[in-house]
């Protein structure tokens, strides 16, 4: 089927022309070079660069995913939940992807409980990531997910809840938005509470479902639960008593501590003003401070029993030794220390009962500064208690060498020395525990802790219990501390506040005591800062609070009454003799 004039390739006259040899050779070299390049490239990709490419490929389908670990719970001593983390969702968006119709936006804003303009503004921001709202409840998050909006994503997070609210606020502290402890026990026990998220490498299929677990890189470790020593019943009781006292006396602040005498556990610790840890908008520093542990104050007369105890211990006075406090004041150097009123001659017991400054100073003058310093030091003043609580302070106790006589005198009745309320309560353990001082603990302990040290002799401590009981009896400074059915003992304190280096007419009223006297179970310390409703004496402001807390606490702990004040029926039993109610001395 050849057409005339057509030529096949082989008969092309051009071929016969005889081209220069260099041209086909050039083409040949070109082709060769090309194929060498390809082979070299292939060898490079297959051989030398293999690992890199494999890793790249794997990263397309293999993923390292995080396995979340939950933060440990905090419970009280009976296992009631005080803090628990539950998952919540945060809604975030990729603004360029989020092209929402106005009705979608309205719907989304409704679920988020945000203004429509607010949502639109956030979605209009530049950048690839914006949080719309953090920590939403899982319910709402599910409904948002069902809207299937483009560019709107969710992220699972944990949020901490505190069912006991403001009652436990200062003990527990709180966590930040990332579920890490920021205050209180949450921070102090961060190491135990925090979980460690695990991670593993998996292969996902096209639909994002995990099809193979390649390796577990690290298993998740959930945070440990922490059981506090706090008894939520006592805590609640102290909280309500304190709130009421603050209101009645129009005080600025206040605090209460309850300690277990047998184990050194902190059974209750409350502060006012307080805050709601579940809603921390508009918090002030005053609300956040845990005054019991982080605020020092001059304890005033609550220091006196230690001076009396040291005097008894040294043996140069007995409880019956008479000290003349006339004329109701004493001059040391250029300063004069005076009593509220003229008491005349008082026994050592009465000096404490009536809280005479002059009598106490007379006793303190027998000691060398060093001797007094050693006692304060062994009672734990001047150094932090080591509870591990953030911000805990140790108060101020200057070296004995620097004491002037007037300072030694004022320190004996609690001025010129400062301590936290927790330290005061702690120091009173020596009277409640036969002269022994125990280390305190915020967490529940199963056995009596070791590390107790003897500060005073057993005899001295028992004598001091009797003396301190007098202070709550008729003729004492705090008959309002009495609790029906129980013998209580304690000491009032009314201290002028130190502001800018001078004493003002603002007061701190306090009461530290223990009960029942026959076999002490709890130490209760109360501090009311700046009562302004007219009364400011420890005996009228703090003692009633002590009474209320002690009464409820002893009942909650199931302690048998040791003072049948009113017709108290006693049924059954082995006829153990009861001690007579408080003597009238």
């Amino acid at each position, binding site marked *: 089927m050849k057409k005339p004039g057509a030529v096949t390739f082989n008969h092309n006259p051009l071929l016969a022309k005889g081209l220069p040899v260099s041209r086909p050779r050039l083409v040949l070299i070109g082709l060769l070079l090309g194929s060498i390049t390809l082979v070299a490239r292939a060898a490079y990709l297959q051989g030398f660069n293999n690992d890199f490419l494999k890793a790249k490929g794997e990263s397309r389908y293999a993923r390292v995913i995080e396995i*979340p670990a*939950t933060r440990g*719970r905090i419970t009280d001593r009976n296992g*009631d*939940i005080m803090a*628990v*983390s*539950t*998952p919540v969702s945060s809604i975030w968006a990729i603004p360029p992807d989020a092209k929402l119709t106005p009705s979608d936006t309205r719907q989304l804003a409704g679920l988020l409980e945000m203004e429509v303009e607010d949502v639109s503004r956030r979605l209009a921001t530049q950048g690839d990531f914006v949080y719309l709202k953090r920590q939403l409840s899982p319910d709402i998050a599910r409904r948002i997910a069902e809207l299937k909006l483009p560019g709107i994503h969710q992220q699972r997070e944990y949020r901490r*809840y505190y*069912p*006991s*609210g403001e*009652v436990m606020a200062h003990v527990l502290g709180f966590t930040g938005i990332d579920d890490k402890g920021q205050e209180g026990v949450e921070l102090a026990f961060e190491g135990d509470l925090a979980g460690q998220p695990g991670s593993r490498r998996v292969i996902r299929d096209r639909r994002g*479902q*995990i*099809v*193979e*677990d390649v390796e577990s890189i690290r298993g998740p470790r959930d945070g440990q639960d922490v059981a506090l020593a706090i008894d*939520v*019943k006592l805590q*609640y009781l102290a909280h309500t008593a304190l709130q009421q006292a603050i209101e009645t006396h129009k005080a600025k602040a206040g605090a209460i501590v309850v300690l277990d005498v047998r184990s050194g556990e902190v059974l209750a610790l409350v502060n006012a003003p307080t805050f709601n840890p579940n809603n921390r908008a508009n918090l002030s520093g005053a609300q956040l401070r845990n005054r019991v542990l982080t605020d020092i104050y001059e304890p005033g007369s609550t220091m006196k029993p230690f001076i009396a105890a040291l005097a008894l211990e040294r043996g140069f006075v007995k409880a019956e030794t008479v000290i003349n406090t006339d004329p109701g004041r004493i001059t040391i150097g250029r300063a004069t220390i005076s009593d509220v009123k003229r008491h005349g001659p008082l026994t050592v017991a009465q000096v404490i009962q009536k809280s005479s400054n002059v009598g106490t100073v007379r006793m303190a003058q027998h000691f060398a500064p060093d001797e007094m310093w050693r006692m304060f030091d062994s009672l734990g003043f001047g150094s932090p208690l080591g509870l591990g609580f953030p911000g805990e302070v140790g108060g101020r106790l200057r070296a004995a060498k620097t004491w002037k006589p007037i300072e030694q005198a004022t320190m004996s009745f609690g001025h010129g020395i400062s301590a936290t309320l927790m330290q005061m309560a702690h120091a009173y353990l020596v009277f409640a525990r036969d002269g022994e001082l125990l280390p305190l603990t915020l967490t529940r302990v199963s056995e009596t802790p070791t590390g107790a040290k003897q500060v005073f002799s057993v005899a001295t401590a028992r004598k001091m219990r009797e003396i301190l009981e007098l202070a709550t009896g008729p003729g004492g400074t705090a008959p309002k501390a009495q609790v*029906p*059915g129980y013998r209580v003992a304690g000491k009032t304190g009314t201290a002028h506040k130190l502001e800018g280096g001078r004493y003002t007419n603002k007061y701190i009223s306090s009461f530290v005591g223990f009960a029942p006297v026959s076999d002490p179970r709890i130490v209760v310390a109360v501090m009311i800062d700046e009562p302004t409703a007219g009364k400011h004496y420890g005996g009228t402001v703090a003692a009633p609070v002590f009474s209320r807390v002690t009464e409820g606490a002893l009942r909650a702990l199931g302690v*048998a*009454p040791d003072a049948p*004040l*009113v*017709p*108290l*029926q*006693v*049924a*059954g*039993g*082995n006829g*153990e003799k009861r001690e007579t109610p408080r003597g009238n001395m």
Partner: protein
Amino acid sequence: MIRMDAFMLMIVVASALGVVASQHQARKTYVALEREQTRTHELEVEWGQLQLEQSTWATLARVERIARTRLELVEPRPGQMIVIEGVK
């Protein structure tokens, strides 16, 4: 010789199919395991929420309010109490 080869080929094919089958089985069981682990986690979360709910209902303030108002309970006065001794 050829028979031997055919036999070997069959074995290879059989083992290859075995690998495929077991791989599939492994994936299926793994997905099941995955599902159960998710469930475990979900149940743990629910437990936490229930505990939270329980302790919210059992808040002492609420208990006290109900005891005082709805049930009209009062604290016993010292004279109304009977102390039973010798019970530990």
